[in-house]
């Protein structure tokens, strides 16, 4: 498979340093896009804030969650924000694939994996930014982590790990379908999948069978672990391991699949 040229370029062009430099160039490309589309970036950041405020004050207020609802909701919407990141990854990759520029990248002696690394780096940065804003808003509406700084950072780490898994699922989906139609499907489907979790409501408040599905959703594991690590309502110990293993398992599947798909663009 000579077209997965990450490896070729490394051998030919003088090594890992060049692959890194290519990846950095591609990351800078994505960051330049932000500079050109500030409104889009702002909308991306504000959207989860709106969800948080809507559920906190309009829709979900007064829910029985075994404590203060805002305290339960904020960690849940942090996980939801990471899940919704899938959508922006799918959109970005699909757009790239449908533009001629991907052909130029692929006809150049660059580490071709750099295209995906740049995508990953930019999406992770965007998600980190989103997370920071959400945590700030959460704090502003009364959410208070009651644990050590180490545990708090652990919670942030789990959220980003979950996002990283979503990222590679998104890259794979976009490479498989490669069409703008998929974007619409994903835009619709992230809602039920995102809400089939304990982000907004407790599994106990749902019919039994639904509650079971919800508890199995990897996102629920992350949300519960984040609640646990921040001392929020709804936290239960014993979920941290699951919220590490689930994303790793998803990555073990989708990371190689995505790379293989990418190499197959030349078939």
């Amino acid at each position, binding site marked *: 498979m*000579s*077209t997965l*040229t990450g490896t*070729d*370029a490394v051998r*030919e*062009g003088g090594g890992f340093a*060049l692959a890194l*430099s*290519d990846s950095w*160039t591609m990351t*800078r*490309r994505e960051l*330049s*896009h932000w500079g*050109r*589309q500030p409104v889009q970036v702002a909308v991306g950041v504000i959207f989860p804030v709106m969800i948080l405020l809507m559920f906190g004050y309009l829709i979900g207020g007064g829910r029985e969650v075994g404590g203060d609802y805002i305290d339960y909701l904020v960690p849940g919407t942090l996980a939801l924000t990471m899940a919704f990141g899938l959508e922006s990854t799918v959109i970005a990759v699909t757009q790239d694939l449908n*533009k*001629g*520029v*991907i*052909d*130029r*990248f*692929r*006809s*150049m*002696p*660059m580490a071709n994996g*750099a295209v995906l690394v740049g995508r990953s780096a930019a999406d992770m940065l965007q998600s980190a930014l989103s997370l920071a804003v959400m945590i700030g808003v959460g704090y502003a509406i009364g959410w208070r982590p009651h644990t050590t700084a180490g545990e708090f950072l652990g919670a942030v780490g789990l959220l980003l790990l979950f996002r990283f898994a979503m990222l590679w699922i998104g890259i794979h989906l976009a490479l498989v379908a490669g069409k703008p139609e998929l974007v619409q499907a994903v835009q619709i489907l992230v809602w039920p999948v995102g809400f089939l979790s304990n982000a907004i409501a407790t599994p106990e408040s749902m019919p039994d069978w639904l509650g079971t599905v919800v508890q199995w959703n990897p996102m629920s594991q992350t949300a519960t672990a984040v609640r646990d690590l921040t001392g929020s309502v709804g936290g239960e110990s014993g979920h941290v391991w699951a919220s590490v293993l689930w994303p790793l398992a998803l990555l073990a599947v989708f990371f190689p699949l995505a790379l293989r798909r990418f190499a197959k*663009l*030349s*078939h």
Partner: protein
Amino acid sequence: MADGIVVEGVRKRYGEKAALDGLDLRVGRGTVHGLLGPNGAGKTTAVRVLTTLLRPDSGSVEVAGYDVLKQADRVRARIGLLGQHAALDEELGGRQNLEMFGRLYHLGARRARARADELLERFGLTDTGSKQVKRYSGGMRRRLDLAASLITEPEVLFLDEPTTGLDPRSRAEVWASVRSLVGGGTTVLLTTQYLEEADQLADRISVVDRGRVIADGTADELKARTGGDRIDVVLRDAGQLGAAVALLPFAAEDVSVDVDRRQFSAPVADRMSALTQVVRALEAADIEAEDIALRRPTLDEVFLRLTGRSEETAEADVAHAKEAV
């Protein structure tokens, strides 16, 4: 000197349809080679294989002395590609695009910047360097695209229908740029649907149909094979068409008559003597001509000669094949 491009027996199938069906091609270093054919003949597929974007099912391909399949990165370091669709980042500015590509060619930050400025200047884009490419006109975009494919002064440059969809002025600009490159020793492979374009730019031309080369030679050789130039004569009175044709020393089977347009058309060997002959003969017979024009054969006529099918039926074939897939 070794050849710039050597293609032997390359095949590529998409389902039922063979996009390339045993393509052979040899392009000498420092020459411009035209790949001429209708839509769907396999020109773009050939370019995608040659530029490492697509793996052929079988056959061997060498570009700039390296195997496209086994030494893809060496090939990539030595080629430039101007595809049919602009291969640019539309969100970024022109300068940002060129700088980014320069870095990805590993020129280093400073040389990438200098090279971007140089190319913007050369293609008359300095003033619009910071404008987003999506706000560029078609001609500007094409020039920037060409600039991007020249960042490393490639040994082999691929131009896939470089002027399709451009207005005549932009087309002339692209032609001028291509000509100036050839002086520098670059090997150029150019695909086109226009015989005129191949004629203007290419040293040699391969006519492609259904994924293989069906004729090969210089523009003059091909034209000689396909009947060379043609003369079109439009008469004032369609009723005199028969008489006019009979007067002239053309083989009857070569003359095509179009009564609705009051026109006949015939291949000519020597342009000037044919013109004088026609004018004199018509004058002597008192047949009034409205228009007399000498012209190159169209691709359709070349095609008809070489394949016995017109270009339109060739395209219809392709459409059928696509439906079948």
